[in-house]
């Protein structure tokens, strides 16, 4: 018997440039398990891709419906954007009792959504990151910031939670303005941000979307020199596309001092994609969690293995890095316990979402360097 996992991401639409790496991340985990060949006594795993379009709830629902009722997948790795993720969860996953692990849906609303215990996410909560970012800024002695966010639930949620935390801690947010992704020009936004002023600019956006456009325009006009980069903004692509101007900018993204991320990055490079691309690591972890939970429960029935995802992710047990999946399967098979750390140091809390450990980074001489952990 064959295990099927659906990978539902926005291969067309606004996120089309980061989804290929995400899918590749998930498929990397599957390939690793298949190479081991030991999952559930030698079952092979296959993946089916489907297009969530990121924005069109109806098309996403139809695509997910196809994966579940026609392709017969046992779990969904996805979706990417919170809007379509909710739609798929409510209209497809719950009715059919399918487990869903999203690598990138961060909307706080998902925490409280009814999910019959089927929904998990390896992306950290926006609220937590806001606090971490505040700490980093305070430690650097920064008191006034301007904030711009991509106008969707991710950006808005992050910007709001950050603004709340930062003000609480005594800082001043001079402006908290949205930008739309994929637009032609960001001069207006940068003009307003510059006028409001601030020591640094917090850009809660995506690395290859409006976020980059904003940074570029801000650098060009001399509006800001230093940028604070949350998870969606940290990526080689940013450094590659902007270059020296970014030196001195800093930020944070999920990660512990485990070497998981760098291992994953190497694995990805070997497999021919960019492992530092936004949410690629989360996607690897999402797929890995699904497979390990199956092994832990000894079943491919979602109703059964859904209850093992938390335990696999949180331990206790042996720590599992990317590339260690074969070993994890071995341990589980022998009745042992694992604590999946993975590429993003996943720790699932509460309703099954990433607890959020963060890696503080700074860009020096065009290189993203880790300067600490929070």
């Amino acid at each position, binding site marked *: 018997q064959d295990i099927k996992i659906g990978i539902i991401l926005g291969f067309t639409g606004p996120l089309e440039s980061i989804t290929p790496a995400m899918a590749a991340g998930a498929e990397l985990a599957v390939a690793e398990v298949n190479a081991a060949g030991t999952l559930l006594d030698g079952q092979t795993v296959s993946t089916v891709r489907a297009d969530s379009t990121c924005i069109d709830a109806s098309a996403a629902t139809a695509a997910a419906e196809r994966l579940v009722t026609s392709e017969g997948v046992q779990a969904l790795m996805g979706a990417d954007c919170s809007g379509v993720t909710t739609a798929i969860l409510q209209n497809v996953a719950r009715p059919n009792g399918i487990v869903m692990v999203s690598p990138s849906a961060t909307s706080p609303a998902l925490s409280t959504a009814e999910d019959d215990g089927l929904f998990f996410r390896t992306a950290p909560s926006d609220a937590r990151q806001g606090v971490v970012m505040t700490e980093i800024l305070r430690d650097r002695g920064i008191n006034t910031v301007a904030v711009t966010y991509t106008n969707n639930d991710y950006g808005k949620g992050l910007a709001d939670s950050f603004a709340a935390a930062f003000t609480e801690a005594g800082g001043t947010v001079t402006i908290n303005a949205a930008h739309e992704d994929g637009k*032609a020009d960001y001069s207006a936004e940068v003009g307003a941000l510059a006028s409001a002023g601030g020591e640094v600019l917090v850009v809660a956006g995506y690395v290859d979307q409006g976020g980059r456009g904003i940074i570029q325009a801000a650098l060009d006009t001399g509006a800001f020199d230093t940028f604070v980069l949350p998870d969606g903004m940290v990526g080689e692509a940013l450094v590659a596309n902007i270059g020296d101007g970014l030196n001195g900018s800093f930020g944070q993204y999920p990660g512990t001092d485990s070497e998981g991320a760098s291992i994953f990055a190497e694995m990805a490079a070997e497999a021919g994609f960019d492992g530092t691309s936004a949410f690629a690591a989360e996607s690897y972890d999402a797929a890995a969690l699904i497979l390990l939970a199956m092994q832990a429960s000894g079943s491919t029935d979602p109703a059964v293995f859904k209850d093992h995802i938390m335990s696999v992710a949180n331990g206790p047990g042996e720590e599992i890095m990317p590339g260690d999946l074969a070993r994890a399967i071995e341990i589980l098979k022998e009745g042992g316990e694992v604590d999946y750390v993975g590429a993003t140091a996943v720790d699932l809390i509460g309703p099954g979402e990433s607890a959020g450990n963060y890696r503080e980074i700074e860009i020096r001489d065009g290189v993203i360097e880790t300067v600490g952990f929070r």
Partner: protein
Amino acid sequence: MDLLNALVVLTNFVIVPATAYGAQLALGALGVTLIFGILRFSNFAHGDTMAFGTMIAILVTWGLQALGVSLGPLPTALLALPVAIAVTALLLLSTDRIVYRFYRKVRAAPVILVMVSLGVMFVMNALVRFGIGVNEYRFDDGARFVIDARGFREMTGLAEGLAIRTTQVITVIAAVIIVAALFWFLKNTRTGKSMRAFSDNEDLALLSGINPERVVAVTWVITAALATTAGVLYGLDKSFKAFTYFQLLLPIFASAIVGGLGNPLGAIAGGFIIAYSEITVTYAFKRFLTYILPDTLAPEGLVQLLSTDYKFAVSFTILIIVLLFKPTGLFKGQQS
């Protein structure tokens, strides 16, 4: 000094970017307006034509860069431009042959052609993604700035900086030259006039001995040139990303229409109106006012009419107001 600083702030954050963006929109709008003016339909594939042309330019640029060719302070992509235009022209001509010609023959209504162009848009969309993928690419080289902010500050001793990019200058100059040339071409050359005649009354054009296929071919070639130039200049200034080019379509159409469809001058005016309204109405005047007002009056808030969330809404509102007073656009455009 403060007055100077205020002026520099305004120039740096409003005038320079709005002018450059306006010129970018105008170049795109010229292509849309030309197709509308001659072939009488709204071409939704224009954004993707721009993307296609730019893709070719990028590929050629990479080739040139690999060979070590460069234009000094100017971007190498300018060298690649003619090749890209030629390839795009070929694509458009074959699209016309395979797709559009049939509808001309059966005298399809303009709205059918609009839908057909939507189909072409999907195909080109896919072509570009197959060709170069969905990622963001930067292909500008040469000197990025004519004046940069830090340099300006050091030079003048002002607190505020002023930055003008090479690409912005090229875009504005190109827009002015191209619109003048196009205007002159349509008004004064035999081919230009025959193009207008064809758009006005196809049957009668035929009776005057005008070869419709030639007119159409010339139109597509010019469109290819306009689209590629616009796309490359835009990509040099910002970056290339297939999805963004598709998104550009909306402001481009707005520009073409507010200026008056079918009128090259209108396209230019429309581009600037859209750009300036997007940027000025949502501009926060705090910094500007802080410089020119005495300290006691310095504003607390941002002094922003509307938040930037509404910048698109603002430009459309202005567009609608213009249309209410000038129902066929500023420069009396055509109707289908």
